[in-house]
């Protein structure tokens, strides 16, 4: 998975900022477009899962590498 329409750097930010910034970024995207979020907050793993479930935006993929968490979110 490498295709995305916009990227959000949420590294160094703590709860709830990664979610709030992602929400804002998604607002600027069209339906079906994909946002890639990079975060360092370990809590963001569960939070983005919960965010996707509650908002209907789809969490296509998430991963971790060198302490960085990456999320691909498709706007509903």
């Amino acid at each position: 998975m490498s295709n995305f329409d916009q990227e959000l750097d949420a590294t160094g930010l703590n709860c709830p900022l990664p979610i709030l910034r992602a929400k804002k970024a998604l607002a600027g995207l069209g339906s079906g477009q994909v946002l890639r979020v990079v975060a360092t907050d370990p809590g963001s793993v569960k939070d983005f899962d919960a965010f996707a479930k509650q908002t209907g935006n789809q969490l296509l993929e998430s991963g971790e590498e060198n302490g960085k968490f990456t999320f691909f979110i498709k706007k509903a």
Partner: protein
Amino acid sequence: MSTKKLAIIATKGTLDWAYPPLILASTAAALGYEVQIFFTFYGLQILKKNMKLKVSALGNPGMPMPMGMDKWFPNLGVALPGMEGMMTVMMKAKMKAKGVASVEELRNLCLEADVKMIACQMTVDLFDMNPSEFIGGIEYGGAATFFEFAGQSDVNLFI
């Protein structure tokens, strides 16, 4: 899917206690909730244009302090002059270092997300607070105003 609703009563006016209502309100708004916060008593400090919120370890032995300060200054020690200011500076520095949003930033995010903020009229009168000290865009009301929204909310929190 009907919109979920969150009602919060914010009653505390210290820096640490300003976080829970603002974090929960902004996050709920991001999740699609309609949110109202009713600020009463010391919670009204969070509505001031110039928030001078402080942390206090007084009566809060659970508060972790850096450099073993809790050993050096047992509970009475934190009442010494200057301690509150010092702890507030340290707490803010720590929050910044850890990427925690400032209360001002969280409050702005709440306002941007149309979180409705209501100031308790009774408390404003009680403490002779001047509405010009508060940020714009807020409303004033009483307990009945709160219940108008709280009564149809999915989640009600008293903080």
